[in-house]
């Protein structure tokens, strides 16, 4: 007969235990490992472990010339690749006091907004999927495909474009670009209603997000939350409004701010931002001035010695680029202030006391891109 071993039975309802969420978990959207300390189903605390996809981009930048750096910034937040390129280009142009042609500014603004829509579409896909609605994933990707086709036709690639260069653009837009963008806007205005029908109004999604993961405005500011996430807590932080670049001064658009600070506010902020982005594109697409697609730049770009900082509004929030130059053709030190990293820092604070399923919802609403966290 088998010997019966009597182990002391632990009551897991009372004891705290740790589980690993990730690094290979579908709802962390990449290789992010969260060590969650649980009591029953309640999250007691949480430790994010970063660095699984750290490539040392900042260090690599120190050996690259400024035009070469552009293609590395694509690989930080790959979903807003154009916007990351824009940050470095603006910084170089500011340091050299180069005036880029109006045409370039218009094209860059339009392409940035298209990129923002594409990024939010993918976020919507994955948000729906994390909530348990796989259908969203297919519908969102189908519409994103249309933008990627426009990108592919004009810039040659779908995700990592390296389209901007310091002083201008790699090449001019495709002759069909304006026509296709207009077709897309008309198409997407119809399809975004599907998004609302399918997910925004859905009772399950409403119950799982309303009042979940509330961050106050003060906390949002002290954690440095920006982008649609920070604006969901009432923190008005749109770089496009407060420190305009490109042609954002010339267009009419609203900064989307909600004060609830919960998961639903962050969700609705992104939905409204897609509509705002379409408004911006519609105002610009017919008025692209003729002209050169790049300013005259020297073959070897050297920044004067000094410190430079430039920020842009990427799809996830404020992206800051900081460069210390010693007058050489490569930067002496380069630092990126990436939005996902700051937004991640709140996760421990906001998820304490939530259920583990709420943690998935909160994480989805923050829209992390892991290479953006780790760089």
């Amino acid at each position, binding site marked *: 007969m088998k010997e019966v071993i009597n182990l002391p039975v632990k009551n897991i309802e009372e004891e705290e235990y740790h589980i690993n969420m990730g690094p290979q978990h579908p709802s962390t959207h990449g290789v992010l490992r969260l060590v969650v300390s649980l009591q029953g189903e309640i999250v007691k605390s949480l430790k994010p472990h970063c660095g699984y996809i750290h490539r040392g981009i900042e260090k690599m930048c120190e050996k690259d010339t400024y035009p070469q750096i552009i293609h590395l910034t694509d690989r930080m937040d790959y979903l807003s690749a154009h916007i990351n390129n824009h940050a470095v280009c603006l910084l170089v142009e500011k340091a050299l006091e180069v005036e880029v042609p109006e045409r370039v500014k218009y094209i860059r603004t339009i392409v940035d907004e298209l990129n923002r829509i594409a990024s939010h579409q993918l976020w919507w896909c994955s948000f729906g999927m994390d909530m348990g609605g796989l259908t969203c994933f297919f519908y969102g990707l189908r519409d994103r495909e249309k933008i990627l086709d426009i990108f592919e036709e004009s810039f040659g690639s779908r995700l990592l474009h390296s389209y901007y260069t310091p002083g201008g653009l790699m090449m001019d837009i495709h002759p069909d670009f304006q026509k296709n963008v207009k077709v897309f806007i008309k198409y997407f205005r119809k399809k975004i209603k599907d998004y609302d*029908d*399918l997910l925004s109004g*859905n009772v399950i999604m409403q119950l799982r997000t309303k009042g979940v993961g509330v961050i106050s405005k003060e906390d949002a500011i002290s954690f440095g939350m920006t982008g649609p996430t920070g604006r969901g807590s009432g923190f008005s932080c749109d770089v496009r409004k407060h420190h305009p670049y490109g042609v954002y001064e010339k267009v009419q658009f609203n900064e989307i701010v909600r004060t609830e600070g919960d998961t639903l506010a962050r969700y609705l902020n992104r939905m409204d931002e897609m509509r705002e982005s379409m408004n911006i594109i519609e105002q610009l697409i017919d008025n692209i001035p003729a002209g050169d697609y790049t300013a005259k730049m020297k*073959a070897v770009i050297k920044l004067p010695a000094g410190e430079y900082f430039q920020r842009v509004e990427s799809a996830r929030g404020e992206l800051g680029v900081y460069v210390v130059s010693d007058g050489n053709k490569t930067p002496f030190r380069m630092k990126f202030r990436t939005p996902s990293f700051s937004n991640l820092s709140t996760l421990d604070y906001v998820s304490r006391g939530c259920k583990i399923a709420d943690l998935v919802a909160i994480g989805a609403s923050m829209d992390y891109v892991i290479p953006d966290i780790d760089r």
Partner: protein
Amino acid sequence: MNSFFQYFADIFNGVKSLLTGMKVTGRYFFSPWEIVTQQYPENRKTLKMYDRFKGEVIMPHTANNEHRCTGCGICETNCPNGSIEIIQDKIDMPDGKKKRIIDKHIYHLSMCTFCGLCIKTCPSDALAWGQEFEHAVFDRTKLTKILNKPGSSILKDISE
């Protein structure tokens, strides 16, 4: 009493919201052509990539097996990750001078990040984007290519 009505209103609204969602999925269920993007690989025969598509870096050759590369090495310096290696050669010109030509333009497709700097900065427009995108091979040494074809020479009007 109020909470009693609220209870049923919540149930009603909940079911309504679910039905609204199911209307959308139902519509696509009966019109699948609205949801299909493309049928790769079934459409491989007819699939045509855009002209600007960045599949790989190629060196276009004319019908006489002539290319435009002078072997200057600018693309090699501009490549951010060392995907290009230029091996130069010297030939004797009739006037007794030595002239630099390209011996091998080695391109490591496996390391290329498709940034386009080599193509943009080449002074004689010798490089271009190719539309081939099915790069899967069993051995990665196959991804190292020599872009100038064997026996090729430089185009006359470039060398002068």
